């Protein structure tokens, strides 16, 4: 799994080339954007300035449902707003997807009964469910969470299903010979541990995909980073839009990095 320690020389070279490439990109961007008005193409310096302003300008976050007010900064308020539908959507949709994937991977009855429905529903892009989100829930946190949840459901469903299908017959037979004689124990002690690599892949994919869906859902008006990207652009502050685009990238990199570490820990046993 790419863990082979490469020598320092190579690491140094890679760092150097990366820095040069990044610097070249920024210089070209700066040069290209300087003669152009900000509302068409902001320079990196303007974007950095906008980022700092958003990061430090005080703003108040109203905690939904509870109604309490918390003093934060503009950027943090938008981030927390996005997380308010991102996290519940991911957790609920992902858990449901994993559970459904395991159930259908394990049970021929469920598999045969629900495969037709699953085949028809799966190609529908999560965003197409916005219709139900609007009618049932409105364009707010719960509506956006619903759409994130649908995306997370399918990704996790597929990976968990494939993981369960891939459990070796041998493992199940050994377990049976060692006294496992009911489905629940077999699922808990053999099927789930054996399918963990695929389940983890599903979770990681949905963490990334979830951000794309969040932004798309917010374009319809739910508060958060994605909404801010559109909102700022409509106010001709493209520097602010781009700053928020980088916020998404940053949040993704951090969450993906953290999850990679978790994954490596959980899967130490893997070849």
């Amino acid at each position, binding site marked *: 799994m790419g863990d082979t320690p490469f020598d320092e020389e190579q690491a140094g070279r890679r760092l150097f080339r990366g820095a040069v490439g990044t610097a070249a990109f920024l210089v070209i961007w700066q040069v290209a954007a300087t003669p152009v008005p900000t509302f068409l193409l902001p320079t990196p310096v303007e974007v950095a300035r906008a980022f700092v302003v958003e990061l430090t300008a005080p703003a108040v976050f109203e905690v939904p449902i509870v109604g309490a007010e918390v003093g934060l900064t503009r950027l943090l308020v938008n981030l927390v707003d996005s997380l308010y539908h991102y996290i519940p959507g991911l957790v609920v949709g992902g858990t449901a997807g994993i559970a459904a994937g395991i159930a259908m991977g394990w049970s021929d009855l469920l598999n045969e009964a629900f495969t037709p429905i699953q085949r028809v529903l799966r190609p529908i892009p999560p965003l197409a469910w916005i219709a139900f989100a609007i009618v049932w829930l409105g364009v707010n946190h719960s509506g956006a969470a619903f759409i994130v949840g649908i995306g997370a459901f399918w990704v996790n469903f597929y990976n968990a299903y494939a993981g369960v299908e891939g459990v*070796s017959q*041998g*493992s199940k*037979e*050994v*377990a*049976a*010979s*060692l*006294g*496992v*004689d009911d489905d629940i*124990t077999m699922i808990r*002690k*053999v099927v789930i*541990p*054996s399918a*963990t690599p695929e389940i983890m892949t599903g979770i990681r994919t949905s963490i990334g995909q979830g951000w794309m869906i969040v932004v798309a859902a917010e374009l319809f008006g739910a508060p958060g980073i994605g909404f801010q990207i559109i909102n700022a652009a409509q106010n001709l502050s493209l520097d602010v839009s781009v700053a928020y685009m980088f916020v998404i990238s940053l949040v993704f990199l951090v969450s993906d990095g953290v999850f990679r570490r978790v994954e490596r820990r959980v899967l*130490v*046993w*893997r*070849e």
Partner: protein
Amino acid sequence: MAGVSGEAKIAVDGVHKRFQSGSGVVEALRDVTFSVQEGEFVCIIGSSGAGKTTLFRIIAGLEEPTSGTVRLDGEPVDGPGTDRGMVFQEYGLFPWRTVLGNVTFGLEQRAMSGSARRERAREMIDLVGLGESKDSYPKELSGGMKQRVGIARALAVDPEILLMDEPFGSVDAQTKQRLHGELLDVWGETGKTVLFVTHDVDEAVTLADRVVVLTGSPGSVHEVVDVNLDRPRARTDDAFAEYESRLREAIE
């Protein structure tokens, strides 16, 4: 050597097995009958296609015979169970569990305290000489070590019978020889009944009290050979060589 009740430990009686395959019906076993007494070490040998593995799986309870019966202490086999510990060629270790975790697996299915489980598992791990590696994952072990774990895991639940399907088929010759010695030691210490499937004549003569020779396709029992040699057996003995050539001829 007979069991207390006079009943055979394993009685295979008139077993037929036919499979439905794409192009029609394939007959794997025809009228296989033999028995194994308590504490005996019996090898099943045969050329490939003679249905050795099918027979193993039927005795293990992983498949049902088309007709005929397999009885253990007089009771018909109904699915796999902890009275038969199984050891497979491909080890079948749980890769997500350490050596200790693999060996405790069967014990977790019983009402036992965690410490009693670990103690029993450590005992078994020591028995196969893997004390140093008890916290390793299977990926860190060699083939020979993996199979020692497989044996320790099967023994942990204290089965009366050890069923082994070409357990040393994937290890090198040297390791194989050492494992033979170790297996015979374990057998001597625990007094289990062992049924050992192999295609290796040399291995059968090294290990078995009796050898069941399966030939043909569909496979049937060609003969049952008693190996009257003292242990430890030396390959260089004339008598060893005689048994070997006799069995080799039989499976050809």
